[in-house]
Each structure stands twice: as structure tokens, then as C-alpha cells.
């Protein structure tokens, strides 16, 4: 009989479809795993509701559970109980190594422009905070574009959700 730990280990092998250096578990989007008599229920929240990788991730999770010989159920939880604070410390480090600045911590209220325009964001390449906002949006909804004035390198900043 499959155990919860085995399911978590299997899910940790699934790379994020858009940022493959990080697994779905490191990304924190797997909320919970509930194993009952060969039935595995996974609760999952996408970073952004419009994430085009949602169905790909769902299918990958279902396939992993099925490969363990259990019946999968993936529930998408679309509420505000998830935030980018759930990205694991290991996940944040992997993002940084791949050139993605990990997200700033969530605050009670939604982020504001003045915060994105501040010098609080660190370049993932040289560590400088002399970085400026280039575009609130980027190649995917979960990222912004910034430019490092110190090492003159553009980089992608994970948005805080």
C-alpha cells in the first residue's frame, strides 16, 4: 500500500513545466497529500489562476500517483490561502542559482508599485540591490523583469502572490 511519504517523494520528481530547475514540491504548490485505502487526494494551487501549465501539472501528478498503483484525485484550490511564501528554502536557492530572483515575502495588503520600484530586490547574479523595475510583466504571469545596475544584467523577478 502506497504511503504519504512515497507520494511526496514522487511529486518531488515533477519539474515545474516553466522553470524545470524547481520541482512542484519545492515550488510549494502541492498543498496536501491525503492517502486513504489506495486513493490519493492531492490539493494543489497554481501560482496564478491563468497558469497555462495547470493541466500539464495536474496530468503529471496523476501519472505519478497512478505509477505508484493508487487512484489519483487532484483538487485545484483557488483561494487566497496560498502565497509565494510557500516556496521552500531549497526552492528559493534553486531559483536564484538559475537566475530567477525569488519572491519578496507577502504582506497583508497586495504589493504596490512603489515597492516594486524600490531598491529592495536583489540581483540573483551579483547580489546587488541596485536593481530597477523594467516591466511588471515578463515571460509568464508569475515573473517581472528587472535590470541590475551593478553587473548590468537583466533578470527575472518572481512576483509575490
Amino acid at each position, binding site marked *: 500500500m502506497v504511503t504519504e511519504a512515497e507520494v511526496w517523494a514522487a511529486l518531488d520528481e515533477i519539474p515545474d513545466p516553466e522553470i524545470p530547475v524547481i520541482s512542484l514540491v519545492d515550488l510549494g504548490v502541492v498543498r496536501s497529500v491525503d492517502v486513504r485505502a489506495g486513493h490519493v487526494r492531492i490539493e494543489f494551487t497554481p501560482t496564478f*489562476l*491563468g*497558469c497555462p501549465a495547470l493541466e500539464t501539472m495536474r496530468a503529471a501528478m496523476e501519472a505519478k500517483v497512478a505509477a505508484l498503483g493508487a487512484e489519483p484525485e487532484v483538487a485545484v484550490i*483557488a*483561494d487566497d490561502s496560498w502565497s509565494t511564501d510557500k516556496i521552500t528554502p531549497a526552492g528559493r536557492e534553486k531559483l536564484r542559482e538559475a537566475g530567477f530572483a525569488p519572491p519578496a515575502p507577502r504582506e497583508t495588503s497586495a504589493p504596490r*508599485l512603489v515597492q*516594486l520600484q524600490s531598491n529592495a530586490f536583489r540581483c540573483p547574479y551579483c547580489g546587488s540591490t541596485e536593481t530597477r523595475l523594467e516591466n511588471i*510583466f*515578463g515571460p509568464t*504571469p508569475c515573473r517581472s523583469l528587472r535590470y541590475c545596475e551593478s553587473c548590468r544584467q537583466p533578470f527575472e523577478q518572481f512576483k509575490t502572490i
Partner: protein
Amino acid sequence: MSGVGSTEPPRSGGGGSAGAEAGTAPEPRAERLLELADDELVLGWHESEWTGIAPTLEEDVAFSSIAQNEIGHARALYELAAADLDTDADALAFDREPGEYRCAPFVELRLLDWAHTIARRWLYEEADRVRIEALAADADAEVAGLAAKIDREEAYHRMHAELWHARLHDEPRFQAAVEQLWPYAVALLPEELRPELARRVSLDLPSNTLLQGKERGEHTPDLAELWDEMTSVRRSAPAGSQW
């Protein structure tokens, strides 16, 4: 430019204020969700039309993400409504006739001019924020939870709109676009939320005459044109098709 540029009155629609005859019964949850979902789907579709042809590459990127988010919100809202209506999100998004959509004329307008596009972005985000904040305080936990999640994402749209508003607010062309679109934006909201919107954007509420043809429940010719394109794949390969 079609639609708002010519200020022609919409052709279809029941006329008058839809919902006025709804009586005292509370509006079913699915009906409320469909209004918001249809607004987000139709606006998201129009925003996506800038992909590849926006004035700058940065705006190309921004509008693509904004469109993706709005359509993602529509999907989540349709899914919640679909559970109540015993159907699925795709059927709600694509299998209804144009007249059955509950979107407001504001989002239907096909705006081919950048000043109008940015004016609508700004007015839409301001108006949307008023209603999303109200929904986030809803007694229904599922509705409130989804609204709060949507609000977190919309925060980035608001920043984008804020930047453009700061740049263009004293440009006559932008001001004219705002003036033209303002009655449409007001009609996006139920009457009780309109004064709050007017306060936030520092504009006077338009007269009832100016609101004619712009209220939810009425539709512009632009919707039928959009619908024809938006549902063409679905109609050529109906539900259950194998790809």
C-alpha cells in the same frame, strides 16, 4: 475605430436596466459569477489582440500576461458557476449564444486605438477593484476566497494601469478617451457601487441619458463579432472532440 469611436447605440439587448425587475429574491450565485466571468473573458480576449502588435515590446509582454490572467480568472469563476449549474467551464465560456452572455458593453468594445485601450485598462481596473473588494467580503466562503486570490493578481494590473495613467493623464487624447468611456465603465458596476468608483477616479457620475445603451444586459455589435471568432474552434470541434 469601431464601437465607442462612433458612439453608435447598441443594436441588441432588452433595453432599460436589466435586473431592475429581478424582484426581491437574491440573485443566484451562478448569475453573479457569470457576470464577472464574462467580463473577464471578453476583456481578456480583447487584450490578447494586442499580442504582437502593441506599440512597444514591453507592452506586448504586459498585455499578453494581463490577457492570460483575465482569462484565467474567467476560468476559475466559470468552474465555480459550473458546479452550481451542473455543466463545465468550457460550455459556459463557449457554448452560449452571444445574447446569453452577461458581460457589460464596456468590455465588448473593440478598441483599436492605444489611448482608448489604456483608458479602458485604467477605468476597468478601478471599477473591478471596487467589486472584487466587495466580493472578497462576501458571506459565501468560496466566492470570497476566489475574489481574494483574484485581487492579489489584479494588484499587478493596477500597477500597470497606474503607470500609464501617470504618464498620460494630462494628454488631451487620453482625456478624451476617458471621457468617452467613463459612462461605460460606470455601467460595469451595480448601482450601489457606482458612487465609490466615481470617488476613487475623481469623476462625476454620468446622467441616465449617457448610460443608455451601456448597461449590463444590453450588448454592442462588437460582441457578436468577437463571439464569432472566439467560439469558432469550439463550434468546428464540439465538446468531446479528440485532438
